Each structure stands twice: as C-alpha cells, then as structure tokens.
C-alpha cells in the first residue's frame, strides 16, 4: 500500500513528522535496555550509566559550580566554540585557494599534487612537529584543525571549480569580465552553495580535530573535559558531552543548510 520504494512517493504530514525520529527512539531504547541489563549484573557499573545518572551528570556539569565557581559545560562550550569558529574562518580561506587552483591551470599544476599528498598526511601522527612549529597555545590547536581539514576543502572546491561549465566563463569573457572577475563574480557565486555543502560535511572533521587537539593541552574545552573524566570512566559526564557536541555540530550544519536553502533559491533546479 504505502509506496515506500517509489522514487516519487509523497510522504504525508504524519510520516514527515514521525519517521525522522524513529531511529533516535530505537537507539534510546537499545541504550536503556543495555544499561538496565548491565546494572542488574553490576549495580556499580559506570560504563553504561542509567538515564537517571545521565540526567544527574548533565545537572552537575551544566548547573552546579565547580571549585573555580564555573559552570563547566558553558565554560567548556565557550572555549571550544571559539576555537571552532577561528578554525572555520581559516579553513574558509581554503575555498579561495581551491577556487584559484581550479580556475588557473598554472596554479593547479603548482598546488594540486602537493595538496593531494599533503591531504593524506595523518596530522595526528606528527604532533611533536606541530609543537615545535606552533608552540603549546591556542595556535597549535587551531593549526591541527586547519591542517586536518583545509586540504579537503581546497581539493573539493578545486574539483567544483574545474567542473564549472566552460561556456559560462566564455560568456563572461565576452561580457568583458577579466580573468579575476570570472573567478569571483562568475565561478565563486555559482559554486558557493555547493562549497558550503562541502564545508557542512566537513564540520565533523573539524569537531574531531578540535577534540583531539583539546585532549593534548588545554584548560577548558569540551574535548578537554572528556579526556579528563575519561580516566574515571565517568560516562555519565562523557555521554552528555558527546551528545552536546554532536548537537552543536548538528545545529551548525542545520543553520548552514537552512542558509543555503533560503539564500540560494536558484539552486532548486
């Protein structure tokens, strides 16, 4: 009856509302079940805390002051968010690099292979070199993210700029556009929403490197906290933190998606 496997199905209102949440609920149920079983076996189990314990963990991190009089969750979120945005801004420069590489054959020659290789270097394995170059402060944390994510953005923008229809560039030239204007007034505006999509898909990598960086040296930050309490198996703190991080990244993603959909209505075709 219901045309689940039809490419032109039009789900009704009810389906639109309910279906997206099914898997979340399933996950939640599985979790509570697992937690229940483990707690029956060992009432002191810390690895899979019960929901009550999780809520308690949230309360402690979000609404109770620690010894410094800080509300940890907010302090951590603020510290991480700052790094996140700084890194994001720097990474966005990768869009310009990729654009130029995609448009100018000489720059492509010069940079492409290097970025392709550099992109594959597992940054996390080279931390000592990172320390030597960038020190121990905020710079090295942001640098880790940038080194980890920027090449992907560069390469992706590069590909998009390269597959941009030549006809439109030619058209722009006949309208008097200089080579630079073609880049910034023709190619960039056209591929920008797609590039934002890429950025969106890479938020995840940003978060990953952010956490990794914070685990190394920091005094606050979401990743930092996870790694500190990890030694005590405080999953009642870790799980809410992880969900919180995911939510933040998800919201950033959502806002970007919203922005793309509304700002670039011409994309709808």
């Amino acid at each position, binding site marked *: 009856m219901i045309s689940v496997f039809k490419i032109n199905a039009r789900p009704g209102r009810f389906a639109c509302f309910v279906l997206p949440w099914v898997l979340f609920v399933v996950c939640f149920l599985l979790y509570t079940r697992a937690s229940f079983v483990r707690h029956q076996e060992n009432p002191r189990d810390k690895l899979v805390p019960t929901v009550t314990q999780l809520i308690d963990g949230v309360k402690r991190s979000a609404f109770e002051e620690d010894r410094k009089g800080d509300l940890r969750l907010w302090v951590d979120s603020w510290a991480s968010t700052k790094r996140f945005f700084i890194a994001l801004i720097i990474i966005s420069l990768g869009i310009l690099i990729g654009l130029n590489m995609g448009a100018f054959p000489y720059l492509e020659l010069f940079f492409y292979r290097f970025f392709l290789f550099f992109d594959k270097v597992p940054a996390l394995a080279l931390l000592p070199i990172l320390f030597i170059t960038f020190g121990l402060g905020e710079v090295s944390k942001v640098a880790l993210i940038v080194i980890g994510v920027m090449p992907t953005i560069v390469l992706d923008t590069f590909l998009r700029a390269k597959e941009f*229809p*030549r*006809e*439109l560039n*030619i*058209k*722009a*030239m*006949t*309208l*008097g*556009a*200089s080579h*630079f*204007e073609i880049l*910034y*007034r*023709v190619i960039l*505006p*056209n591929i920008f929403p797609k590039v934002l999509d890429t950025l969106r898909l890479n938020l995840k990598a940003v978060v990953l490197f952010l956490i990794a960086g914070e685990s190394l040296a920091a005094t606050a930050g979401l990743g930092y906290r996870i790694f500190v309490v990890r030694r005590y198996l405080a999953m009642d703190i870790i799980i809410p933190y992880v969900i919180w991080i995911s939510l933040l990244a998800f919201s950033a993603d959502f806002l970007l998606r919203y922005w793309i959909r509304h700002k*670039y*209505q*011409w994309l*709808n*075709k």
Partner: protein
Amino acid sequence: MHSHILELNGVYQKYPAKKKKMRTILSDINLQVSPGELVTVVGPTGCGKSTLLRLILGSERPYQGSVKVNGAEVKEPARNRGIVFQQYSLFSNLTVRKNVMFGLELEYFSLPGRFFGFNKSKLKEFKEKADEYLQRVGLLEHSEKYPHELSGGMRQRAAIAQAMVMKPEILLMDEPHGALDMGTREEMQIFVLEQWKQENLTVIFVTHDLEEAVFLGSRIVVLSQFYAGNTSSGGAKIVKDVPVGWELPRPTSIKHSKKFSEIMQSIRHEGLDPHFLQEIRDFDLRHNDSLSLNTTENWD
C-alpha cells in the same frame, strides 16, 4: 585600417576521433567580413556551424590557419565579440534582469569597486537600460525570475538581450531563435535588424531556418560537408557565399516574393541536399568579399 573586421584564412579544425585519429570538421575555410555586414550561416546539421562560431569567438583555436579580428589574431573570447549560444547560457545564480545587467556592471565596476565605491545612480541607469532591452524581447514582467523558472524560448530571449545590451562590435548568434514560435521569432528578427542598424553591429547569425537566413542576411554563407570528392572525413567547406541584394531592414512581406523562394530553393538544393554533390570549382562564391569573382544581379 583594415577594411575587413573579420578574416579567416585557410582555417582547418579537427577533433580527436577514435583510435587517436583526428576527424576534420572544417576544411580550408576562407571568409572575410566587412564591418556592418549581417552574415547568416546555414548548413546541414553537424556540419560545423557552431564550431565556426567558436573559432571566431576564440574559445577554440584553429587546428591550422588564422582567425583575425580587426587584423589581430584571435586568442581568447573578449568584450568586442558577443555571443548567444545554441544552448542558452544564462548565469543560473542571477535573475533575468541581473543577467542582462551583468556585462554593464562588469564594464563599469572594478572588482573592489563593486564592494566599496558602489555607485547607486550608475546601477539605476543600468537597471533602466536592462529593462529597456527586456521590454524589447518581451520579458520585462519576468525580470525577477531565475533562469530555471523560464521556458526554453524565454531563456533564449533573455540570452539575446544579455548579448545585445553590450553592443559588441561583432555579435555571434548560434541558432538564437531555435526555441521560438513563429510570431515571437519574427518579432525577434525585427529586433535584431533594428539593433543591427542602430548600433551598426556586425552580426554572424547561424540558423537552420532558411527563410530566416534569407530574410535577415545581407549575405548568406552556406557551409556543407557535402560536395564532390569529399569522403566522410573531408570536413565542411563554404559551398556558397552570396550577397542578398535587398536593402535591410526588409518588410516581412518580402518572404512571399518569388525571388525570395527562388533563393531559398537554390540554397536548399545546392547547399543542403546531401545528394547533390557540387564540384569545388562550381561553388557559388559571388560575394564581394569572397575569393572568387563577382557578377552583378538584379534585386527588386
């Protein structure tokens, strides 16, 4: 000064084909065009008309031979040659009006100027100019739409407005009326003629509609791969290059005159019929700028 605004000398174009061979598309094309001419180009489908335009445009370089505009070798597309592509090429991120204004803005604003020295009055002027052209092609009420919201014919007209508004020295048009119904097509023909006269343009107009070609052209060039001695890989040549004697612009009624259908018939027969294989020496290259001798004829 060069008397010819456009010169093609011994132009060949080849494309890679299977097994690393090259397939010749255009073979020894010689064409001279004086300023202010309205050259219509016809030919069997796939003969290389679009290829010819790309060479003049500079988006492709000839395999052999030279393409010169105002005596200078063509290296890349430039401001002095406008184009309306066969497959409409509007910028999909801009509304119709913005598409038409785009060239005007480019010419006036430098890239930073666009962000800082924003000249409002100038913008307004451009907008008015764009609207004037949109009005002419009958798209004024659709000026806020994005290209994907337009029908095929509307896109073509927008592309024509976009190219026209720039008043290029040479305007290249590749079957610009392909998606238009007869009425609109006639209106657009009149629009092209009017602009041509007013702005003193040089136009190269590719079409598959013979009637249109004869009605519009001050000169008709027929490109064909069908001529005696041409195997499938020989490439197209100009098999006919004749002036059309009636003064431009012409009344539409001329389409019904006997002379008109005679010309159409002869072109159809000699130029477009794949079974009629002309000898190369018999090519009818009567036009003044053509390389053969010219004879005089009566046009009334």
